[in-house]
């Protein structure tokens, strides 16, 4: 029986840049800003680090971008990439390294500089040497979930559109309270529902923006955490479920859920000893790359019963003042999605919430938080889940 990661490691410092179109910042600037905030927060210097993990999809190759920028000396810096879960993957690897006892103090940092490319959306990074793969954009790939979900649960296209818009509306409402978000404005429902289509039935507001950003975390063993601060964040569970691509080739997959989410959640809940996520989880940051993704996530992670997620979305269950706030920081919808940074940005919100530093977004007495970060496409994903807590045990 494998030893669980639960309570073995703690986060003692975090940093996060403001996300947006950072014409005046390069990736090195953002790595520096996020890391220095994390170092200051933890009360360490870069020479205190024993190792670092670097998450990025497109912005850099090796970890040299981090070691050169931070002048980390000759410690190991490892670049990891797991599609849109690259930031989470850096965190996961860093946590395991500390838990193994190999290192005392490590850094996980993620960055993405998307706005320098001049492209709209993300370039496709999957190899396609024979050039025959359908050129499906990311919003189109996730919009497959919508007609299938509506059909299965008997929603009219109009009802379905309202549900999706309600999710976008909620996330923008939360993001309006967050000075680090790319978009800090509430958006009225009728505007969300009536903007031009990106991938039918998804309009512009159903899609996360393209932004630049970085986020970082300093991780130590739990036994050392109080050397750094009195209010660390403890890691209870970390999982990655890598898909088999079965959704694209097997008729059993019906496009109303993402199998990898369910697999990652089941394992994570087991690691953290969670029996009923609806009651035990105080708040969640989930991968709302597109609104139907968040809808199926509610059900995949057990926040809603199957087929009930749309009702829970409409009745405010996941609002900031609801039973289970989802994306209190505004989510990808408000932050945009600088790939390598997003997973760490989600953890940053948990960390601030536990410390009572989430200002207008502050949730009352959060104990356990969940971050969910997804890479790939509905039929072939990597799904990451973390459970983090304010307290030990």
């Amino acid at each position: 029986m494998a030893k669980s990661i639960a309570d073995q490691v703690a986060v003692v410092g975090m940093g996060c840049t403001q996300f947006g179109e950072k014409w005046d910042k390069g990736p090195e600037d953002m790595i520096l800003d996020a890391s220095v905030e994390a170092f200051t927060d933890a009360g360490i210097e870069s020479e205190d680090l024993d190792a670092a993990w670097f998450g990025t999809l497109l912005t850099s190759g090796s970890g040299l971008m981090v070691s050169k920028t931070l002048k980390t000396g000759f410690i190991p810096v490892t670049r990891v990439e797991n599609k849109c879960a690259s930031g989470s993957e850096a965190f996961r690897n860093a946590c395991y390294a500390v838990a193994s006892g190999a290192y005392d103090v490590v850094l996980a940092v993620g960055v993405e500089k998307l706005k320098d490319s001049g492209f709209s959306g993300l370039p496709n990074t999957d190899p396609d040497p024979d050039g025959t793969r359908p050129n499906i954009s990311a919003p189109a790939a996730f919009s497959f979930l919508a007609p299938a979900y509506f059909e299965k649960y008997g929603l009219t296209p109009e009802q379905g559109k309202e549900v999706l818009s309600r999710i976008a509306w909620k996330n923008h409402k939360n993001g309006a309270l967050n000075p680090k978000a790319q978009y800090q404005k509430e958006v009225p429902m009728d505007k969300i529902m009536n903007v031009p289509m990106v991938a039918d039935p998804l309009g512009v507001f159903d899609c996360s923006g393209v932004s630049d950003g970085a986020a970082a975390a300093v991780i130590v063993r739990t036994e050392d955490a109080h050397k750094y601060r009195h209010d660390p964040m403890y890691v209870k569970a970390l999982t990655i479920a890598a898909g088999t691509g079965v959704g694209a080739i097997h008729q059993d997959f019906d496009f109303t859920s993402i199998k990898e989410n369910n697999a990652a959640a089941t394992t994570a809940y087991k690691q953290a000893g969670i029996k009923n996520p609806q009651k035990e989880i105080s708040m969640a940051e989930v991968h709302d790359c597109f609104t139907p993704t968040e809808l199926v996530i509610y059900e995949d992670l057990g926040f809603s019963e199957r087929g009930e997620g749309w009702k829970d979305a409409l009745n405010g269950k996941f609002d900031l003042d609801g039973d289970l706030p989802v994306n209190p920081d505004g989510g990808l919808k408000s932050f945009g999605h600088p790939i390598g940074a997003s997973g760490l940005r989600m953890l940053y919100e948990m960390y601030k919430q536990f410390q009572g530093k989430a200002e207008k977004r502050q949730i009352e007495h959060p104990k356990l938080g969940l971050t969910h970060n997804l890479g790939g496409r509905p039929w072939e994903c990597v799904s990451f889940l973390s459970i983090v807590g304010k307290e030990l045990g």
Partner: protein
Amino acid sequence: MVGITGYGAYIPFSRLKKKVIAEAYGEKGGSGEKAVANHDEDSLSMAVEAAIDAKADAGNFNADVVFFASTTPPYKEKQSSAIIRSALDFKRNIRSTDVTDSLRAASGALLSAADAVKSGEKSVLVTASDTRVGGAQGGFESLLGDGAAAFLIGTENVLATIEDSKSITVDITDQWRSSADDFLKSWEERFGVESGYNQLVSDAVHDLLTSNDLQTTDISKVILAGPKERYQKKLAATLGFSDDQVVSGHENRIGHCSTAQAPMLLVDCLEEAHPGDLIVMATYGSGSDAMLFKVTENIRSYAPRMGFAKQLQSKRDNLPYTTYLKWKNMLPTEAGRRPEIPQPSAPAMYRHQEQNLEGYGSVCTSCETPFFPKQHVCAECGAIQQMEPYKFTDKKGKVVTYTSDYLAVSPDPPSTFNVIDFEGGGRMICEMVDYHLDQLAVGMEVEMTFRHLYEAGSIHNYTWKVRPKR
């Protein structure tokens, strides 16, 4: 007796109203419409579609020789009929030839096919297909349409025998396109008609009738392919044919289909033909080939998969003129803010030929679940390397879910993508073409269609997509 043992046609789904062309230039007039190959179609892909249409029964479909006749092959050097062979999943050990550069290419291929059968080959496929374009606002622009036809030539179950043929070969510079020209050029129209078409076609048809001891009244239908229908009708009258005998009306419905013109008229004619009918088909281009066909009893029991008449009715006729210009690469447009499409890898294309051209995935020999693309490990039962090839492209499918993608760069946005489940198992995520946007629905029935995907680094790329059942 050697003759036609199967026939089929392909008319692209999109039609451009000739009035729309006139309106684009502030002009009046223009009647009828022309067939326009989709942005992901070319002469090669249409030839494949026509050949599939000629596959009347579900049984074995093969040929010993494949011909491709066209003046618009995708490559100046690289054989199209080899790709056609692969897309039709014919066996490898067959002969293949492209016949190009002349509007007489189709009849040349048909006559060569007959010769091949006479010398012992059992079955020969002849495809004729063209996507010729005229310069914008010119006469050829509204005249020319896109289309393809296909014939199987053999000796068993002959639908129409090839009784005889006569050819004339004379050089005349009436229409031409050099290897550097994008558009068709021509001398004064009356020169070509009076000195070329009228003389040469007339001579060939006259020779044919005389040597077979036939009068024009013995002939059921006559096809006198050539520039514009009014010249065809006039020549027919001069030769002594009545209006009823002349196969016509296509110029107004699909346009002049170039190399495929005479073959398509012949397909239309065969769909209406009766046993005993005598058909004369003459082509024109640096001379003329006149062929005499006699329809047999077998015609009663033959029908192509869809045929000319049904494809004529199945259409989208709201094509904007600017879309037409984009599809024909005649309107330079701003590139989308997306990375450029890279040149496909030749070794990867070669390795994946069975999948991308022939349309095979795999089926697990342990649990019989089919997969596309080919899998090594079964996603159903976990068996490792227990797969056999499984053909998908002849299966019907249904839409599981779909989306119209306005972000993906396309010459005809939005691109529509679907998840398709196949009858008998298996699934594919692929693009849909030739659809009406307001008719998309979960559960709609689709069929596979062979397409030219794009050209990058001057390599042409082909694979299969789906379309609503036509």
